[in-house]
């Protein structure tokens, strides 16, 4: 009950954020965005034809009415039809979002889990050579561009110049084996890049926690180092860890998937977004931006509830 009440309050408090995000993106993408009038017209259109098309596209309505229309679309999840394919936007997203999740989730989970383990190991051997090597690799990982890693991994694992053991591009998934085949290289690239930043972040969180007085108390009562880390420290470090993980979810679904999907030609929401960017497909862009904003508000809510679960000092008031 407490959680439910809290959630409602939080959702209401998230309204200004949703309004802000939708407003800014509406202003940039729709109001100042690409004008589709002439793409839909034949050669030498008459002023009447132009006015007709502009009316069809809703360009002649006042700004606030158009914005209100957008909000209504967002509330009803009815964004109309894609300009370029004519497919219903909700159907398009319903088809592509699962693909993106299937593609991104394994790399996302592995990238965080492995990073937390590496961070614990590094923190345990703080200042020793193990720590220094892990952190050295992490700086190297941070310094290589995601794009470069993707290209290099594709050459190494997929092309005839490398091992050639995975498909170069595409998404032809009919079985688990296909699935593993197609996500292998994108996942490796994602994990490689994520490890650099994540390991570093998690290590600093854990090391900071290790300097706390209660850790010294635990040591004074003979808690062995391994137990100290996974029991006494990890739970305390959960708040920054949860924050990082949950808040990166909305971004990876869109931004992370965008690069991988367009490079590997995988029909996920990232690819759809990328195509919408390049063709100025406003119904799709509006849907993606609006839904991301909603996801952020939900992420905020989720972190707050999770904080409560890991830290008794946090109250849902």
């Amino acid at each position, binding site marked *: 009950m407490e959680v439910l009440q809290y959630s409602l309050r939080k959702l209401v408090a998230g309204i*200004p*954020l949703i309004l*802000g*995000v939708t407003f*800014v*993106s509406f*202003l*940039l*993408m729709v109001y*100042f*965005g*690409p004008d589709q009038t002439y793409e839909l017209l034949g050669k030498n259109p008459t002023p009447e034809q132009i006015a007709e098309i502009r009316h069809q596209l809703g360009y002649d309505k006042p700004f606030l009415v158009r914005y209100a229309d957008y909000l209504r679309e967002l509330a009803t999840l009815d964004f109309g039809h894609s300009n370029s394919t004519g497919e219903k936007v909700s159907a398009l997203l319903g088809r592509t979002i699962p693909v993106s999740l299937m593609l991104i989730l394994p790399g996302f989970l592995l990238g965080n889990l492995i990073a937390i383990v590496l961070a614990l190991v590094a923190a345990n051997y703080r200042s020793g050579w193990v720590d220094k090597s892990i952190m050295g690799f992490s*700086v*190297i990982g*941070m*310094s*290589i*561009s*995601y*794009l*470069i890693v993707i*290209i*290099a991994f*594709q*050459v190494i694992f997929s*092309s005839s*110049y490398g091992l050639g053991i995975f498909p*170069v591009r595409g998404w032809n998934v009919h079985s688990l084996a296909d699935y593993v085949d197609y996500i292998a290289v994108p996942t490796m690239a994602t994990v490689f890049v994520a490890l650099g930043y994540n390991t570093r972040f998690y290590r*600093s969180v854990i*090391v*900071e926690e290790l*300097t706390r007085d209660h850790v010294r108390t635990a040591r004074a009562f003979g808690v062995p180092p391994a137990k100290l880390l996974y029991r006494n420290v990890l739970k305390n470090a959960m708040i920054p860890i949860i924050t990082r993980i949950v808040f990166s979810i*909305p*971004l990876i679904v*869109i*931004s992370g998937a*965008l*690069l991988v999907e*367009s*490079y590997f030609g995988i029909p996920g929401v990232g690819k759809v*977004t*990328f195509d919408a*960017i*390049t063709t*100025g497909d406003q119904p799709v*862009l509006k849907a*993606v*931006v609006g839904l*991301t*904003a909603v996801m*952020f508000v939900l992420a905020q809510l989720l972190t707050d509830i999770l904080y409560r679960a890991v830290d008794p000092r946090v109250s849902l008031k």
Partner: protein
Amino acid sequence: MSATTGSTAAPMAGTAQPAAGERRRQTLWSKAAWKFRRDRAGMVGLAVVLAYFVAALGVWTGVWATGWADVAGGKWEPVSAEHWFGTNLIGQDIFQRSVYSIKTAFEVGLVVAVLSTLLGAMLGAMAGFFSGRISDELILWLMGVLDSIPFYLLVAAIAFALEGNPYAMHVAMISTFWITTGRLVRGEVIKLKNLEFVEAAHAIGVSEYVIILRHIIPNTFHILLVQSTITFVAAIKSEVILSFLGLGVKDGMSWGLMISESTFEVLAGFFNNFLAASVLMFGLVMAFNMFSDALQDALDPRKVS
């Protein structure tokens, strides 16, 4: 019982206040310089960054890499004395193009780092100084809003709104990269304004803007310096991906454009373009990261390493 703690109680005269803030700064900076010089990785990083910077200056003043756009050879020529890194699809010299791109990287990095740090410093200081008031709420809301728009979408939107302006990429990066700096500065300012020397300046009637400019902003310089190095790296890395997506550098040459050129070359077995851009870029980013790390270690008293 301790005789050593007696000095804090004495009330200080109004004229002594700026000195307190200054002292705080000086000890921080001299200690940081000392610490930084002892950080071997940081010094190596700095040296490499400076070498790159000299290379960029050479391009900028027209000393070298002037023929980056000339067709000087055949398609995909291998490494030779004439073309150190070979040539690309239409016979342009890859070495010159990759060196020219150093200039582009510094341009993007410096413009974005300087402007987003300035913006973050100003808005962050304002929010922090007026924390709890409406301007703070507004700035926090703006940060939340901009944070919630996926970066590539924002770039695309700004690119559209600016109708293909070559600086659309810079504007987009600045409008997202200032946020982290702004948040950090806000936090530091909230801490600073409760310190004695700021309260004392208040008490003797110094105006709020003078307090922000003279007493608070200077005490956040260490954050700004570290953040600008982080932003610089982020800008260079983003350029590569944005250029690949067709949202980045419009005229001129950059590592991002070279890499996106190379995406079909690598599948045909020609790696020169890709390697030249990747390696040079890795060198600069790695050096900058090492430099930035050392700065953080030296300047952030809270950082535990």
